[in-house]
């Protein structure tokens, strides 16, 4: 995997992020229960879960670093290495694959010149395969950063990626499911 330089940064949290972590700590009867949401805040801050993040979370929550490490490795949404500026997840589970998941993945690979699991040379995109994302009826679909894009074709995906590369973030609503009103 290529390692984009811009994401290797030490953990520095903004006052707002610090405040969010304080608030998270207040929600649970134990400090440890704040572990998963706190890791999310840190990952949001620097793009991945670095050794710094693990040390910080361990110290903040009174856990051993090995315990935090054990949590991080169990879950797939923590990036254990730096990723591109945008992460593109292509759902490849059955319902999506029946409707073109593989075609979408191949199209993304061709466009980006890298395989699933890799980051583009310029550090813009990391491409990953996802397991079912609870959008099965709106297949094929991808998740880009924190948004779902559904009912895709290679052309629609291209249009979205073009805009994202220009700095825009298309809303989830643009491609989203709409309620069935047939029987109401």
């Amino acid at each position, binding site marked *: 995997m290529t390692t984009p330089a811009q994401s290797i940064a030490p953990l520095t949290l903004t006052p707002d992020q610090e405040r969010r972590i304080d608030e998270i700590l207040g929600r649970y009867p134990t400090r440890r229960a704040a572990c998963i949401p706190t890791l999310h805040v840190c990952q949001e801050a620097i793009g991945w879960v670095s050794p710094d993040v693990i040390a910080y979370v361990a110290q903040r929550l009174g856990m051993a670093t090995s315990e935090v490490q054990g949590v991080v490795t169990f879950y797939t949404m923590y990036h254990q290495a730096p990723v591109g500026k945008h992460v593109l997840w292509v759902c490849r589970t059955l319902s999506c694959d029946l409707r073109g998941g*593989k075609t979408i993945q191949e199209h993304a690979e061709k466009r980006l010149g890298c395989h699933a699991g890799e980051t583009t040379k310029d550090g813009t995109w990391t491409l990953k395969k996802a397991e079912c994302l609870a959008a099965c009826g709106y297949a094929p679909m991808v998740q880009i950063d924190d948004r779902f894009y559904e009912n895709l074709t290679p052309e629609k995906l291209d249009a979205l990626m073009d805009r994202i590369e220009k700095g825009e973030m298309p809303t989830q609503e643009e491609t989203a499911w709409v309620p069935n009103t047939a029987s109401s």
Partner: protein
Amino acid sequence: MPDYKNILSNRYPLAQSWTLAVAERAGAYGPAKKALGTMTPEQIKNEVKAANIRGRGGAGFPAGMKWGFLNPKPGQDVYLVINADEGEPGTFKDRTIMEKDPHRLIEGCIIAMYAIGAHKTFIYVRCELVLSIQRLEAAVKEAHAKGYLGARPFGKDHAMEIVVHPGAGAYICGEETSLLNSLEGQRGEPRLKPPFPAVKGAFGMPTIVNNVETIASVPDVVAMGGEPWSNLSLLPPEMKDGGTRLYGISGHVLKPGVFEAPVGITLRELIYDFGGGMLHAGRPLKGVIPGGSSTPVLRPEDKVHAPDPKSPMNKWHGKSHLDVPMAVDTMRNLGTMLGTCCAIVMDSSVNMVEASRNLMKFYHHESCGQCTPCREGTGWLEDTLNKLASGRGKASDVDLLVDISNNMMGNTICALADGTAMPMLAFVRKYRKEFLEAADKGLSPSQTRLDEAVRAALVGAARAQSHASHAVGGAA
């Protein structure tokens, strides 16, 4: 097309349906006011029992009975935990509630907390569902501001709080005890049962874990009364499978999506009426997975065999499996499960070795690894299917799939292993010829593409050709 009135999803089409103002104008929080203002917890529990809500998370356990297992010791907190981990392949219904009508879930939590004596709810949402999390958090804030949550909801001296808790990406965290470990900040490994969560759940306290849709149904139960709500079901009351629910349909149909209908419509109605029928007129239905990928596949040509008039299935003797009402017990009698009530439809273009290989890869990836039969079995199933697909297999590998599956069942900590083995067995039993053919000559490149039949339409027929030849190859 049958014409049913939407109840659970009636607010979905409203503009800004996720805001309190819109939801309340359309009836939200009326039932909570009624419940907290005029009913005792006992009365609410009785209505929920009478409603015959079978848990919507997949196991179909009666919600009223589950609530009845609570018996907290003095000084113990009681927790309500909402399972919003929605990760079972094929399942995408809970998300619609959280995105379009989060206040229905919040209201359900308020009524349920009051009924079971809880002061705190944790809604465990898989973190990929960012919009769901945002809408729920906003809804909780709005409800607080209105005084529907907080120290005295609806004037009742019963403080309530709701915490929206994100997961971190692990299918197994949908299993309720794994979810509790994950909530506590541990690795999401399932716990041995007993003790059941009702005795020792979140943070060691008595806990009720319910699915999003289960709890979102509670306001309507309170509004209508348990029995009338139960009677919305098309099934006879003695089947104790009541109400209205969300159905999902994905795969090879013209109109995939989520639909609301009474409990007890048939798979044929779901596929051909709600789902608009098969995607392609020339490609008939080959198999349907009725309720998420852990439920064994059904074939349209299979008929119910229940000649004994005393059999609960006798009513449907001689009928296609597609014409049996979808209910917890009927599906079990067909050798499958109702599961999450979200069907995956596969037409004649699908190779079933490849379809099962897709799913077994998933289960292998998602097994938490605590139990040897599951850890080894899921991996071995995937390897064996890879062998068959690549032409390195032999006929005995088909029986090996059966042996591995049989050895996985019944001796593991959680139901993931059974949910892997049972579908695998059904695939082999019902499509054995295809597995034997794969053992003989492997799968052709087009057979290993589940999207072969739809690809041309997706990319435009002419460009499909050039695309295939230029694609960055190799990734399976």
